[in-house]
């Protein structure tokens, strides 16, 4: 199918984009990489009256300060893989990006688009939860910062209001030496995940000091697993009891079955992926 009619506006600057978005309110939408919005428009699942093309705006840098990595909204997925400091500081994020779609999608899809689209199993949304990223959101009145945990509200629903635009996502740098892993299961290579797990750990004296675990596929948005995180801290890297952690998470969640997978299958899958992700992160930490 083909999209219905709309009016097209090319944003010449961030301020121009914000003015246009303020003017159109509910009827306007940013167009970034188009890799999620255009399929929805072609299928007539979305029919915005005004598209504000932000694809050319210079929000295309991955920048590092002493305390954080700031990813511009127009950073293409591929850029994470080309920047060695991403893999160094955020190994689970780096690994997650390799699972986003296919090379052509990674060339054109953007961070702002993926986070704003908020697919329940989007890899970047999970990574934002895992690493406690902060969304930097602007409108014509100013800027606000929204923690990832407050940003993703439901499937395809975020805290963004009409007239607002995500300009960057800020990832606080984990302590030096943090290890991580991301594992996913999808029906075919490049498909959206059925479920995925990200793990990030800090280490002291051969043991897990702190752990973060994020999970997609359990709820309509990515979640953290604070109980499992507590359980892991203090465990030796050589015996993190990952199976028990996986079973505990599987027992705590209440996923909805789909035409593809039953709820029980999802629970079993998430338990298994959790164990694998913990084992991989610990093995990586131990081998350094």
């Amino acid at each position, binding site marked *: 199918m083909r999209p219905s009619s709309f009016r097209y506006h090319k944003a010449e600057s961030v301020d121009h984009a914000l003015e246009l978005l303020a003017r159109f309110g509910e009827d306007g939408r940013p167009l970034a990489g188009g890799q999620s919005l255009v399929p929805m428009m072609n299928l007539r699942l979305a029919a915005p009256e005004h598209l504000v093309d932000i694809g050319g705006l210079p929000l295309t840098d991955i920048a590092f300060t002493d305390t954080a990595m700031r990813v511009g909204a127009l950073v293409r997925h591929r850029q994470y893989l080309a920047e060695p400091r991403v893999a160094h500081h955020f190994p689970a994020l780096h690994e997650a990006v390799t699972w986003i779609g296919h090379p*052509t999608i990674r060339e054109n899809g953007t961070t702002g688009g993926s986070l704003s689209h908020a697919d329940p199993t989007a890899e970047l949304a999970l990574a934002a939860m895992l690493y406690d990223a902060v969304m930097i959101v602007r409108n014509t009145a100013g800027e606000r910062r929204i923690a990832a945990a407050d940003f993703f509200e439901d499937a395809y629903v975020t805290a963004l209001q009409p007239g607002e635009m995500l300009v960057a996502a800020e990832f606080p740098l984990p302590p030096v030496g943090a290890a991580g892993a991301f594992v996913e299961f999808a029906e075919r290579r490049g498909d959206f995940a059925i479920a995925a797990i990200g793990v990030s750990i800090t280490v002291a004296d051969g043991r897990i000091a702190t752990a973060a675990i994020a999970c997609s596929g359990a709820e309509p948005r990515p979640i953290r697993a604070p109980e499992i995180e507590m359980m892991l801290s203090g465990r030796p890297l050589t015996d993190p009891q990952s199976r028990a952690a996986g079973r505990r998470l599987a027992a705590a969640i209440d996923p909805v079955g789909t035409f593809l997978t039953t709820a029980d299958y999802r629970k079993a899958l998430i338990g298994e992926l959790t164990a694998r992700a913990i084992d991989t992160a610990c093995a990586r930490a131990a081998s350094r």
Partner: protein
Amino acid sequence: MTIDITLTVNGTARTVRVEPRRLLADVLRHDFALSGVHVGCAHGACGCCTVHVDGTPRLACLTFAVQCDGKAIHTVESLGGVDATHPLQQAFSIEHGLQCGYCTPGFLMTLAPFVDAMVAERRVPEDAEIREAMSGNICRCTGYHGIVAAVRRAVTEQIETGSAQP
């Protein structure tokens, strides 16, 4: 609403008047008469419509033509002309990388930059890397083995003959 846009398609700049809702794939097929741009699914799932926008592969069905004002577009027609002389096209022919041919322009436009990058590195990729590179393209005929073999051949032959030296 219609907008005048200038596209440089396969090296020739032309201005066309389009409705914003028109997909780049349709504008290339209908306004530029480039029937090598194939539309399989029109929602990003099959890779048939892959073209290059300013040198980067992109799905022409997930692109509005108005987004490409001032940009350079290359379609499969620019690869090796009607005789399909490009080394990757030749390798597809030799290795039975196509049957009905519907998916072929998309595979070629997706894989040509990958082949160039491998030749520049002087490295023959593992089959798993080739399969990852073409994972966004669907072929209902060949079963993919011939396509993997074609990529391997195109890279190997160009490295051996020393063409495309960095």
